């Protein structure tokens, strides 16, 4: 843990706090994920590294409340997400978490603008944070992420992968959610576009002091993040603590 990370732990309340988390899929008898203690702090950007099948996406699913652990607790922004009803978890996710996938991020038959403003229809709270109209905010985000304005009304299936990832980032950022969860968002981009994309994403996230949690198997982006953890390291390290 770097000095900067140590500062987070002392100064801030965690946005994600995991205690003795144990999870297994229904089809298996052994726990596939076992995290005794793990915290992520407000405004922090964290990269979780690990090979395919190590449980990175499962952890993101749990942070987003899409799956719940069998044992342990998981608090997001101080709320015990495990104890919520499913509909409360859905609402909580809509209000506080923006998501970017690896690829196939967008509703392919909708326009870029419609994709960006879609989360607002599930979260009045995020809509309240938008200054101006939804569309104005979507345009602002798309422009700041480097999307040409002539692509705003284009069907996203007709955009390049890089453009699609920027639209996905704008969708995750709209309404200033406290957390952005990104599941290998740069894996389909070449190295120059990868850096540019992350730079733009981080710039926009820093405006609202948004926490970024990203998982990847690619270690080349480490320099962009406040904290970098390998999944096995995380488990080992957290087991030791």
């Amino acid at each position, binding site marked *: 843990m770097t000095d900067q990370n140590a500062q987070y732990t002392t100064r801030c309340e965690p946005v994600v706090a995991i205690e003795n988390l144990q999870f297994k899929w229904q089809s298996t008898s052994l726990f596939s994920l076992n995290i005794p203690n793990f915290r992520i702090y407000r405004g922090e950007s964290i990269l979780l590294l*690990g*090979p*395919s*099948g*190590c*449980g*990175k*996406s*499962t952890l*993101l*699913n749990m942070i*987003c409340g*899409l*799956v719940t652990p069998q044992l342990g607790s998981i608090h997001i922004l101080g709320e015990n997400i495990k104890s919520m009803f*499913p*509909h409360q978890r*859905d*609402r909580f*996710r*809509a*209000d506080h978490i*923006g*998501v970017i*996938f*690896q*690829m*196939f*991020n*967008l*509703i*392919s*038959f*909708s*326009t870029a603008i*419609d994709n960006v*403003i*879609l*989360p*607002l*229809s*599930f*979260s009045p709270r995020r809509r309240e944070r938008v200054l101006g109209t*939804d569309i104005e905010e979507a345009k602002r985000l798309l422009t700041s992420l480097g999307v040409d304005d002539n692509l705003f009304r284009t069907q996203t299936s007709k955009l390049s992968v890089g453009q699609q990832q920027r639209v996905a980032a704008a*969708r995750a950022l709209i309404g200033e959610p406290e957390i952005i969860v990104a*599941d*290998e968002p740069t*894996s389909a981009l070449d190295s120059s576009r990868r850096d540019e994309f992350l730079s733009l994403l981080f710039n926009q996230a820093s405006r609202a002091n948004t926490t970024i949690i990203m*998982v*990847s*198997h690619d270690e080349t982006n480490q320099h962009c993040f406040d904290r970098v953890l390998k999944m096995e390291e995380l488990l080992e390290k957290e087991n030791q603590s």
Partner: protein
Amino acid sequence: MIKLRLLASSIYSRKITVLLSIASICISVSLVIGIEKLRTSAKKSFTNTISATDVIVGARSGNIQLLLYTVFGIGNATNNITWTTYKDISKRPEVEWAIPLSLGDSHKGFRVLGTTKEFFEHYRYRQKKPLAFKYGKPFAKTLDTVIGSDVASTLGYNLGDAIVVSHGIGKIETNLHDDQPFTVVGILQKTGTPVDKTVHVSLQSIEAIHKNWKGGRRLKAQDALGEVQTETKFVPREITGALVGLKSRIQIFQFQRYINNYRHEALSAILPGVALQELWSLISTAETALIAISTIVVMTSFLGMITMILATLNERRREMAILRAIGASPAAIAGLMIAEASLIILAGIISGFTLIYAGLVVFRSTIDQISGIYIDIGFPTDTELFAVIGIFIIGCLCSLIPAWRAYLISVTNGFHSQTG
């Protein structure tokens, strides 16, 4: 608003399959409405076979039998009424008009009806619509005949053609009145009633052509035609029945009671409207069959729609995963499925209505000409509206199947897994 746009663009992205589903529902809705229109119109046309006639009088028999042989020309009379009785009845103070009917002969499978000129004046069908002549005029001479439109079109008759009447109503014409052919002097407009399939002649001519007949056989050669045609003293001895119009409808039951209790002869008086309803209820099995067929067609189209939505669910897992990730609950995703199906059904219903009504506007007169079924094009009836609302509700209920499937998929899928 954005959800509506999402719905619209989702539907647009699968436009071919959606259009096929809409077309399927459209056809089934138009079939249901068409069958319902046809059913009610056929019933109306059937019950409108005879109108403005208050009472039908015949020899003592059942309601339906009397109706069948006097109005529809089906079956035979159990007995005849004497001319004296007919005259007695027609002179009753409550009787406004009476038309004698004499049946028993035929022409190439079509019934021959002996009657008077008053038949063309007083007979009404379909909401008191009078008979109209397409060509010619009512019979004036003894061996004149007025034929119905189907007789003319089927046998290719025109004014001035000679036709020979056969004794009896058998299909094989053995005993022809070929010594006294009739001349076509009038062809009636199509009515959609048994009148179209009838050869109308005067009562006198019926008596005239049977002058030297006994027991269905001719006794000797008839006199010269000219002699018969100038004969005016042929007075009928018997007739088959009579149509009666009363001065006041209040007197109907009193008159019916009088006829049923007629002292000199065993008679029956029936109310045509009541008898027609009784007859229709006997053949309502066909009605039920039509409804059953249209129900099956509707259910088939719904199965098609469910299959279409279910088949696309796998392709749409990604779409559902994205919606879940941005905060849509499984119920919201299921709701989108139901909304999508509802829109498809609604589009199918609207296009189905448009199709059938446009079809009716274009083909109504042709249907009337061909089948005699006059279809009313008005605001949809209560039954049609109930049927359509029923279709919409059942369709929405059917959409719960793919919606439930979508719900399960979105609950179990979580994120679209791309990494470990």
